[in-house]
């Protein structure tokens, strides 16, 4: 089975967010970048499926030159190939629709049975790319997957919905978005890291793929959220209950 995994490089989850003077981006100096955590579940699942049969796993990203590091992480975990759609513009100028078009374009002519995305990229928190790419590739999608079984061409997946889970069946080729609960992502081994350094990364240029890069959704301004009013330390259960009952009237 040939599997594509779309991954994104994002600031580490503990990053203290500050706004750049342009008001359209965060301050990028000194940030540690990681592969978005949901994409690690996606990579892990793809590797497990490959190991259970045969085929290849290809990691793909759209992003600046520095995003190659994310692809190297994917390769070090065990992916066979990597595709980098190099986008050198401002991150705020690339919207989800355009990103998905670039991903679909990069996959034109490529053979795949399954495409994985993460549930969401933890920088823009958009939860869009999976569904968008599935539509552009004209394949069914199953999102928010916590359990996946593949038998021949048959897919059986559990996805979470409010207050429960749905079991969904479909056929290959399809697109799956992964979330926590699906598996435990592996760490790259030393051997994997050394091997990944030598692997070639296929490069495509976003500006040369024939996709209109003008965003539909324009980022006008980025700001910090309003500060929470200072809280109050109460001395006893009785005082707490009184506050909940009389001040904020929630009970």
């Amino acid at each position, binding site marked *: 089975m040939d599997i594509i995994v779309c991954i994104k490089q994002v600031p580490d*989850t*503990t*990053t*203290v*967010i500050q*706004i750049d003077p342009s008001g359209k981006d965060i301050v990028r100096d000194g940030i540690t970048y990681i592969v978005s*955590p*949901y994409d690690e579940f996606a990579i892990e699942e793809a590797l497990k499926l490959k190991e259970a049969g045969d085929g290849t796993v290809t990691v793909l990203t759209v992003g600046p030159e520095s995003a190659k590091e994310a692809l190297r992480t994917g390769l070090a975990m065990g992916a066979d190939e990597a595709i980098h759609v190099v986008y050198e513009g401002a991150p705020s100028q690339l*919207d989800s*629709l355009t990103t*998905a078009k670039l991903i679909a374009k990069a996959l034109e002519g490529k053979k795949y049975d399954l495409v994985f995305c993460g549930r969401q990229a*933890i920088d*823009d928190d*958009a*939860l*869009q790319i*999976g*569904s*968008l790419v*599935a*539509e*552009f590739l004209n394949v069914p*999608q*199953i*999102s*928010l997957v916590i359990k996946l079984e593949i038998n021949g061409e048959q897919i*059986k997946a559990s*996805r*979470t*919905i*409010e*207050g429960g*889970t*749905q*079991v*969904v*069946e*479909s056929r290959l080729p399809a697109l799956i978005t992964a979330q*926590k*609960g699906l598996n435990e992502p592996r760490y790259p081994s030393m051997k994997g890291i050394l091997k990944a350094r030598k692997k070639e990364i296929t490069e495509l240029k976003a500006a040369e793929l024939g996709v209109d890069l003008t965003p*539909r*959704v*324009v*980022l*006008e*301004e*980025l*700001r*910090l*959220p309003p500060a*929470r009013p200072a*809280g109050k*330390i*109460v001395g006893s*259960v009785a005082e*707490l*209950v009184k506050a*909940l009952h009389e001040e904020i009237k*929630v*009970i």
Partner: protein
Amino acid sequence: MNILVIAETKDGTLRKTSLEMLSQAKALNGSSITAALIGKGVAGQAARLGHYGAHKVLVAEHDLLEHYTTDGYTKVIKDMVDQIQPDLVLFAASSNGKDLAPRLSARLDAGLISDAIELSHDGSKFVAVRPMYAGKAYAKVSIQGKALVSLRPNVTPVAAPDESRSAEVMSFAVNLSDADIRAKVVSVEKADAGKLDVAEADIVVTGGRGFKGPENFHLVEALANAMGGAVGASRAVVDAGWRPHGEQVGQTGKTVSPTLYVACAVSGAMQHLAGMSSSKNIVAINTDPDAPIFKAATYGLVGDVFEILPQLTEAVKQIKASNN
């Protein structure tokens, strides 16, 4: 302005998020607000949509629409959009809405703003505010032309209904066959009957690693029950296997914005705060006065959950009893 609201139902009744979307559509001064009511056995909800602001209701009832499927719902809504040509389509940023809205965005080649917490129109374009970086930044974004927006549940206040208003209810011809649905729902497993989902609950009581083991979570459950809320869990607790994944709050769990969030024996790591810091009121109970959770708290109580929770549960029960 012509607005199409994709209403959501659960077990045959409207979810609160549907009313929130209609209130938002009204606040935008939509000259024509159409609600799409899609499913099986949902037609009875049409009148209520009218009370909350819909001028028209398109009822799409079909056996194949009994469960949400991406293919089925996308096709029906695409047909509705072609027919009524809305300027704005509003979705709920729920599990299904998040699956559906981008699929339509691609099919219609129209921009989508997901998980908006504010939405307005400045005369030439739709402008929205949406959290990014797990709520550590707010982005102001805009869309020129046809706009798709999904609204974060539990943020928009619901305007009072007007029971004298009635919508024009029309049945919508559903053009679907079995073959259209490529990913089919074969079963739905509900969490315990009647159990509230953390992402939907108005009150959430979360337990962290300080409970020391799953056997002590009955204390969290008892408080949640007394308050009429749902149980949440930190990742430490979920990873230890004490509680199911569905209860995890935070960056890799659920994002919640209830009226009241009670964090018990949770340290308040950045990734946990990411999922709950937009709660309207936060109570923190922790033995460590320096725990970061206290910085986010509206009310903090320093102490041992094993002593405090039983007392708190009892006190809440008493207040509830005297309220009645």
